[in-house]
C-alpha cells in the first residue's frame, strides 16, 4: 500500500540490459589464447624495450606455475584464459551516432548522477566533435602539471618517455609472482596510468583518469603506478560513477603506489562496472591487486573506495608501512545487490616503528548478494609501538543477503595496540517508515539512511566525487529493501 512506487522502480532497475554488444572482429586484434608469442606480439605492438619484454615473459613463466586461488568467499565459473584475446588496439569500443542509440537505462542512470550530455556521450562512446572542449581542458591541465614537473600520462607513454622511472619502480610493490592475477597482469598488461610527483611538490589538483580522455578504454589488464617523491602530495581519482559497460568479463588490474619520505598519496576509487543481469550473468569479474608502499619515514597512503558494480569484486587495497611513523588508511563502502558478490578489504603490514593504520569498512548487502570483508593487520617484530584501529560494519537490506567478516590479526611485537570493532545491522523498516511519515519518499529515505551509514567513508572522498558517490549509492539500492 505504502510502497506503490516499488513495482515501477523494480521494473526499471531490474530491466535487463538490452543492447548486447555485437563484437565486430577488429583488424587489430590478437587471436584468442595466451602464450609467449602473444606476449611478444603485445610488446612489439607497443614498441616496448627488450627489458620490458623479458619482464613480461618472466611474469608469464611464473604465472604458468601458479594456480587460481580459491580462498575468497565468492563463487563463479573460472575464466578460460585461452579463450580471451589479450590484445586489441584501443578504441575498439562500439561507437554510436547519437545518444538515442544508448541503452535508456544507462542514460537514465547518468542523468540521475547529473552527468552532462557531453560527458554522457564520451562515456558511452558516442562519436562527438565537441569533445574538443575537453581535449583543450586536458591540454591546459597537462601544461600546468608539466610546469611543476609532475608526470601524468599513460603507461605506454611512460615506458617510452620515462623508461628509467618505470624500470626503477614497476613491480617493486607488487612483485610479478605476487599472486595469480598480478602475474597475469604483469605478463599481458596493455596500458594504464603513470604518475610521478617530484620532490616537495604538492599536486594542485585532483589527478583523474577523466582527464586522460585520449587514452580511455584502457582495457581489462590495466596497470597503474603512482610515485610520490620526498615531501610531495597527490590525490588521485580512479574510475567514475557512471555505469561502465564492458565487453571484457575479466578485469585484473594492478595498482602500485610508492610514497617516499614525508610524502602522501590519497587514492580514491569509485567503481561501477556492469554487475550482470539479476542473476549476475554477464557481469564483470573485478580481480584487482592494489598495494601501496610507505617507503620513507613519515609517509602516508590513504585508500578510499566506493564499490557498487561488477558481478564479482575481489580486491584488497593494502599498505606496507615500511618507513617509521608512516600511516596507512583504508576507507571503503562496498555495495552488493541482486546476485553480486564482493570479497574486499585490506592488508596493513606494519614494519616501521610508530606506524599506524586505520580501517573503516562499510558493507551494504541487498537482494540475494554476498558481501565479505576480509582484512589482515600484521604487526612485524620490528614495528615498535604500532597501532591499528579497525571498524567493520555491515548493513543488510533484505533477509536473504549475506554479510561476512574475516578479520586476521597477526601481532609479533608486544608494544602493539590493535583494536577491532564490528557491527551488523539490518536496515530498519522502522527507519524507513519514520522517514515516510515525515513526507519523504521511500527512495529518498533509503538514500538518506544508507548515506548516513556510509558517511565516515564518503567524507573522505574529494567533494565533487562524494556528491556523485552519494547519488550512486542511492541508485544502486533503489527498491532493494525487503
Amino acid at each position, binding site marked *: 500500500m505504502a510502497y506503490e512506487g516499488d513495482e515501477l522502480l523494480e521494473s526499471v532497475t531490474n530491466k535487463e540490459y538490452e543492447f548486447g554488444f555485437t563484437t565486430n572482429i577488429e583488424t587489430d586484434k590478437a587471436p584468442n589464447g595466451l602464450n609467449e608469442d602473444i606476449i611478444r606480439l603485445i610488446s612489439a605492438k607497443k614498441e616496448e624495450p627488450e627489458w620490458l619484454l623479458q619482464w613480461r615473459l618472466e611474469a608469464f613463466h611464473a604465472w604458468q606455475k601458479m594456480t587460481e586461488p580459491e580462498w575468497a568467499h565468492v563463487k563463479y565459473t573460472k575464466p578460460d584464459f585461452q579463450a580471451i584475446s589479450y590484445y586489441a588496439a584501443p578504441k575498439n569500443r562500439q561507437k554510436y551516432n547519437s545518444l538515442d542509440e544508448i541503452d535508456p537505462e544507462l542514460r537514465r542512470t547518468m542523468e540521475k548522477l547529473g552527468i552532462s550530455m557531453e560527458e554522457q556521450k564520451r562515456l558511452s562512446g558516442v562519436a562527438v566533435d565537441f569533445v574538443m572542449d575537453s581535449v583543450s581542458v586536458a591540454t591546459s591541465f597537462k601544461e600546468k602539471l608539466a610546469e611543476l614537473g609532475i608526470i601524468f600520462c599513460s603507461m605506454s607513454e611512460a615506458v617510452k618517455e620515462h623508461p628509467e622511472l618505470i624500470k626503477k619502480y614497476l613491480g617493486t610493490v607488487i612483485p610479478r609472482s605476487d599472486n595469480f592475477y598480478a602475474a597475469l597482469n604483469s605478463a599481458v598488461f596493455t596500458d594504464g596510468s603513470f604518475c610521478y610527483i617530484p620532490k616537495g611538490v604538492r599536486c594542485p589538483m585532483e589527478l583523474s583518469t577523466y582527464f586522460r580522455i585520449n587514452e580511455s578504454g584502457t582495457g581489462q589488464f590495466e596497470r597503474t603506478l603512482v610515485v610520490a617523491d620526498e615531501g610531495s602530495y597527490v590525490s588521485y581519482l580512479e574510475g567514475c560513477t557512471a555505469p561502465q559497460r564492458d565487453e571484457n568479463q575479466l578485469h585484473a588490474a594492478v595498482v602500485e603506489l610508492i610514497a617516499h619520505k614525508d610524502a602522501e598519496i590519497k587514492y580514491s576509487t569509485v567503481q561501477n562496472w556492469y554487475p550482470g543481469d539479476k542473476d549476475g550473468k554477464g557481469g564483470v569479474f573485478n580481480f584487482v591487486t592494489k598495494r601501496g608502499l610507505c617507503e620513507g619515514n613519515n609517509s602516508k597512503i590513504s585508500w578510499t573506495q566506493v564499490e557498487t558494480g561488477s558481478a564479482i569484486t575481489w580486491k584488497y587495497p593494502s599498505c606496507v608501512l615500511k618507513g617509521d611513523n608512516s600511516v596507512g588508511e583504508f576507507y571503503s563502502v562496498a555495495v552488493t545487490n541482486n546476485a553480486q558478490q564482493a570479497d574486499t578489504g585490506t592488508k596493513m603490514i606494519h614494519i616501521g616503528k610508530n606506524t599506524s593504520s586505520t580501517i573503516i569498512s562499510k558493507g551494504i548487502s541487498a537482494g540475494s548478494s554476498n558481501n565479505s570483508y576480509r582484512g589482515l593487520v600484521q604487526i612485524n617484530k620490528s614495528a615498535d609501538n604500532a597501532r591499528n584501529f579497525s571498524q567493520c560494519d555491515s548493513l543488510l537490506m533484505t533477509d536473504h543477503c549475506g554479510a561476512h567478516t574475516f578479520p586476521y590479526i597477526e601481532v609479533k611485537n608486544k608494544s602493539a595496540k590493535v583494536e577491532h570493532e564490528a557491527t551488523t545491522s539490518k536496515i530498519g523498516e522502522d527507519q524507513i517508515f519514520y522517514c515516510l511519515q515525515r513526507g519523504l*519518499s521511500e527512495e529518498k529515505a533509503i538514500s538518506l539512511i544508507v548515506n*548516513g551509514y556510509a558517511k565516515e567513508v564518503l567524507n573522505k572522498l574529494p567533494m565533487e566525487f562524494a556528491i556523485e558517490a552519494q547519488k550512486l549509492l542511492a541508485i544502486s539500492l533503489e527498491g532493494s529493501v525487503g
Partner: protein
Amino acid sequence: MLEIKNLHARVEEKEILRGLNFEVKPGEVHAIMGPNGSGKSTLASVLAGKEEYEITGGEVSFKGKDLLAMSAEERAREGLFLAFQYPVEIPGVSNINFLKAALSEVREHRGLPQLTAKEFLALVNEKSKLVELDGQLTNRSVNEGFSGGEKKRNEVFQMAMLDPTLAILDETDSGLDIDALRIVANGVNAMRSPERSFVVITHYQRLLDFIVPDYVHVLYKGRIVKSGTKELALELEERGYDWIKEEVEAANA
C-alpha cells in the same frame, strides 16, 4: 477533519481494531485512553499508513479525502503527523538535513515556495525554542544518542516545523519526567489553533493536566466504548478501567 467509520484492522492473523468509529473536527483535541492492548498504538500506526497492518473494513476520510488510499508519505504531505512513541535513530543523518529534506517535500506537495537557507534556519531557530531544544541537538544525527526526553521534544519540534493539520501523539508522555512533560505540553499547546487538530494517545491522565482535551475516549478491544469530556479522564484515573470493561461485557452479554 478526520472521520473514521467502522474501521477494522489486523496484524498477522490478529484482529486489533474491530469497528472503530471516531470523528475529529478542526481545532479539536481528542484524548484516547485505554488499557494495554486495547489498540491505541495500532490506531496511530494505521492512520499513519504503516504497512504491516491490514485494513479489513471501514473507511477513513481526512480533509474529505480517502486516507486509506494514500501512501504513508502522501498522508504526511497532506498534513498528518505522527509523533512516535519510540522515535527511531538514523545514524549519520543530521537532524537538520533530515528536516530540510522532509520540509522540502511537504512544501512542494502543498504548493508552497521552497525556503531559502536563511529562512529555513530562522524557522529552525523559532520552532526549536518551542520545546527548549538545544541548538546542538538540531545538528546531531536524528535521535542518535538523544535521551528519552530529548527524543520526544524532537518529535514535537519536527511537528512544529512540518506544520500539520492533524497531529497524532502516540504516548508522547511515556518516559518523561515532569519537567520534560511540561516542556513537551507547552510546545503542543503553543501549536493549538482553530485549524489544527490533535489526537493524544496516552495511558495517564497526567498529560491531560497539561494538554487539556476537548474530548476523552476510551478504547477497549478495538472499539471506542466510552466518550466524554476531560472529567472522564479524571474518573479513569481514580477508578481504573475495570468498571468500563464490566460495562462492555455486560452490554455484550
